[in-house]
């Protein structure tokens, strides 16, 4: 496997590691961006108004669907109607499944994040004359961010993992190496593919952790530059929020 990875040809060739890594990232990014655009405003709205919680329940129920079955079902359903060029026939069902996977954790954690905001804080925000949108933007979202990030990280892991399975259909991405290696008994290639996917997932998670560190207020995360001295401090940082358990579906 090391040998396979050390061969520069395997990296730069057409359909090599660079190409597939880029493809994999693209699939994941498209799905995540769409999922964020859908789930974040919706989650903020549900959390802010307290209405439409059933949508979270529905989204969560989607999690019990088998990803592979969904992927193949959508492919079989859509394939006869897609006459585009290239990968579209594989890409469309894959993106739909990836978005379906990414929305529930994002939605659930955004709603939970907003609902977790201390009622006194929201009361104060409205009482000081913030409009609804200002309460959401200036108060609820910044305080919900840790949980939003937890949902986003969970969604990212699932999307990267599931994008691998899409190679089974015939789509590109790092899963190509896994399935091609398996089919051609080239276990070095197969294992290298697996390793690359794992690395990509770990690196993505790390990047998001860094992004989280820089966007979440220290007042919320509890990381203070100076330790509060004993005489003036309360019990230190705010209580850590329970992160909703992430799920692996692929």
């Amino acid at each position: 496997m090391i040998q396979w990875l050390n061969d520069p040809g395997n990296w730069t060739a057409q359909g090599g590691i660079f190409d597939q890594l880029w493809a994999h990232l693209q699939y994941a990014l498209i799905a995540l961006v769409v999922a964020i655009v859908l789930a974040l405003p919706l989650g903020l709205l549900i959390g802010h108004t307290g209405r439409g919680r059933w949508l979270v329940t529905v989204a969560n129920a989607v999690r019990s669907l088998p990803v592979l079955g969904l992927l193949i079902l959508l492919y079989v359903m859509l394939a006869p109607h897609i006459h585009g060029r290239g990968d579209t026939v594989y890409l469309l069902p894959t993106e739909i499944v990836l978005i379906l996977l990414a929305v529930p954790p994002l939605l659930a954690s955004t709603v939970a994040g907003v609902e977790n905001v201390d009622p006194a804080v929201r009361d104060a925000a409205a009482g000081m004359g913030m409009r609804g949108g200002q309460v959401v933007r200036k108060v609820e979202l910044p305080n919900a961010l840790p949980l939003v990030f937890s949902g986003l990280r969970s969604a990212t892991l699932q999307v990267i993992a599931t994008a691998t399975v899409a190679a089974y259909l015939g789509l590109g991405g790092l899963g190509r190496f896994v399935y091609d290696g398996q089919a051609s008994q080239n276990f070095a290639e197969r294992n290298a593919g697996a390793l690359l996917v794992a690395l990509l997932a770990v690196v993505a998670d790390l990047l998001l952790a860094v992004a989280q560190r820089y966007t979440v207020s220290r007042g919320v995360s509890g990381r203070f530059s100076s330790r509060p001295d004993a005489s003036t401090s309360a019990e230190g940082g705010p209580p850590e929020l329970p992160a909703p358990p992430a799920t692996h579906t692929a």
Partner: protein
Amino acid sequence: MTPPGLTAPPVLLHHAPTAGLAVDSSPGGMFSYFSDHRDEVLNWLGYHAWLSAVPVLAGLLIALPLGWLARRYRWTYPPLVTAAGVLYTIPSIALFVAMPELIGTQILDPINVAVALTVYTVALLVRVVADGLAAVPEDVAQAATAMGLTRRQRLLKVELPLAVPVIAAGVRVAVVANVSLVAVAGTIGVPNLGQLFTTGFQLSVGNPYYPPITLGIVLCVLLALVLDLLVVGATRLVTPWRRAVGGS
């Protein structure tokens, strides 16, 4: 049992039912598909259930002492939880194919899947167990100590029972996720309900052939539902005090 073709895109209909290919290729054809392939499907269902449930049990048994450790000796919490987090980021397909290298089994051995899923369950539950034990109200733990319970008695008689609902929530997540994960192992040929999807995929090369796909989805959802209910039932059984106040 022979695995279906592994080439992608597959053309060879290894498993193409020779005699009993249901005429109805719509999603509703799954009932006749089921009666035509009863033994095979039930066999896959059995594998699937086994692969979904056993790793959760094994994972729980491993996570309990680890979670206790993370709670008892606080300095072990960050490394244990971080390690669990990293393990959890590894996509399942990567772990499935890497497993033979790690434990020296054959690639299609279901044990690979079982071990990989056990790893995920442990990764998920270590933190849940530690946090669940930590969530036992301090005054309750103090009262137990004040009444003279030893550390061990306190753990078994007070802290663990009170942490059950939290741990159970984690187990439910793990078991439902596992049902979906097991199917993914079908793409590399491990026998389970995932085979219905790969079969459907192969049979749909010309025209859509839905019966095995819809049958697989329905069976997977039903299996997830049944296993989830089993966990809920078991939880209620061991936490009778929650029923007394109508807790769920």
